[in-house]
Every structure is written in structure tokens, then in C-alpha cells.
């Protein structure tokens, strides 16, 4: 079975990581920041599965399956709590701009 070379996947994964970090650095909308965390987690999952399946094309090690499934469930919980915090912050401050959350600062 012929598959795409690993280097292409690595480049795509690091492109996803870069997009996620770019969004975290430049955006001020809290929902957009949660989207960035989601993209970063997806990039980490892709990187993990690329390494786990690079021994022989067409086969993936089961430990990688298990760890990524656990990580996906954890990320679902993280996103749920983060979006609940977004809703709470919007109720309290009336804004989704992180610069407006000044009461959280020192």
C-alpha cells in the first residue's frame, strides 16, 4: 500500500500547529481562542498517529489508538468547560473580547 511520505504529514501537522498558535497570539475573541486550542489538539493527534503508523504503511499501533481516543475525550471535556467559562464571562462582562476581562488581572 503506497501512502504519502511522512515528511508531507509532518509539514501539514506543523502548519496546523502554526495556524493554532497564530490564532492564539493574534485573536481577541474568546470563542476564537477555544477554536485555536481545538486546532492545536487536532494537530497533536495527527502528529501522534503519523508516527504510530510510519512503521509500515496501512497499519497503526493500537497504543496510539487508545491514547488518542482518551485524549479526544479529554479535549471534549476541556472545550465544554472552556465554552461554559466563555458564556459565564459574557454574562458577567457583556463582551467576548479578552482585553475586557480586566478584573481577572493582578
Amino acid at each position: 500500500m503506497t501512502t504519502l511520505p511522512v515528511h508531507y504529514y509532518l509539514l501539514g501537522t506543523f502548519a496546523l500547529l502554526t495556524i493554532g498558535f497564530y490564532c492564539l497570539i493574534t485573536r481577541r475573541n474568546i470563542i476564537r481562542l477555544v477554536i485555536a486550542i481545538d486546532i492545536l489538539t487536532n494537530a497533536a493527534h495527527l502528529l501522534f498517529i503519523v508516527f504510530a503508523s510510519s512503521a509500515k504503511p496501512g497499519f497503526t499501533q493500537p497504543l496510539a489508538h487508545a491514547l488518542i481516543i482518551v485524549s479526544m475525550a479529554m479535549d471534549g471535556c476541556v472545550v465544554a468547560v472552556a465554552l461554559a467559562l466563555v458564556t459565564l464571562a459574557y454574562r458577567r462582562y457583556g463582551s467576548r473580547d479578552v482585553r475586557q476581562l480586566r478584573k481577572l488581572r493582578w
Partner: protein
Amino acid sequence: MTITVAWQLALLAATCGFALLAVELHDILHAVLALLAMSVCLAGIFWQMSAPFLAMFQLLIYGGAIVALFIVTVALTGARARSVKAPGRDPLWVMGGLTCVAVLVLVYALIRLRPFETLGYAQLAPVFVEASPSIVMQQVSHFLWEYRGPDLIAQGFVALAAALGCIALLRPPHRRDS
């Protein structure tokens, strides 16, 4: 280039493109839909890499639950009606973009110039790697559901804690103040 390689390349490019759209689209609902498309493309990549369980979980968790949570949050906060003002001439936008491009170029140069140490470990073939695909999938499912019990129990506790946290955070204001 075979059809499989072409599919994988197209799915990888589509994943990166939809991720960029999720970041750049002005309307937050469109951004969430781009995130959904990115999750579907990533599930396709997992499927192509012989990881059907991951493709299924990717569609269920990211393509279903998380996107639904995002849409509910967008509806609750009125994010479509009053979007946060774009940074415009903010120097942070330029600095962030330049930093990310520099990091991407650096990573690409490192990948091309130096052998990746981790690839050496990843190239070690496990015992079952020579088995037929059906036997491998049986072993994967057996490994997942028979040997990862503590992980699944811990996962259930985390899901319960997250649900309790969401309930505590989203209580009505009068109950929280009293």
C-alpha cells in the same frame, strides 16, 4: 502518484485550508462550520491511515459534540450579531504572523536538514505488523477494550467532573449570589 496518495494529499491540504478559514473568517458561525469541515477531513486522513476507530471518534466528538457546543455558545453570546472588532493596524497581528511564518520555516528546515530522531523509534516494527489487516483490526479492538480499562474509568471521571463544572458555572445568577 497513486489515487491513495492523491487522496491523502488532498485531505491534508483541505485540513490545513479549513483550519486557516476557521481562524480567518470574520463570521464566527462560518468559522465553526470551517472547523467542522476540518474535523471531517481529519477523520478522512485517519481512515486513510488505517485508523477507523479514530475516524469514528473524530466525527462523533469533534464533528458532532464540540461543534454543537460551539454553535450553542455562539447563539447564547450573540457572537454573530456583534463580532469583536478586527485587530486592524494592531502591531500584534504583524508580530504574530511573522513569528508563525518564521517558526514554520525553521521547522521545515530542521525536518529537511536533520534526520528526525523520533522517526527511528517509530520505524521499529511491532510484532503484529506482518499480520493480515483483519487480524490487526481485531487486535486493535481487543487492545482498546480489554487492556485500557483504567483509562476508560478515568475518562469517565473526567467527563463527570466536566459536566459538574459546566453545571456549576452555568447556574442562574441569583443562586450563585445567595
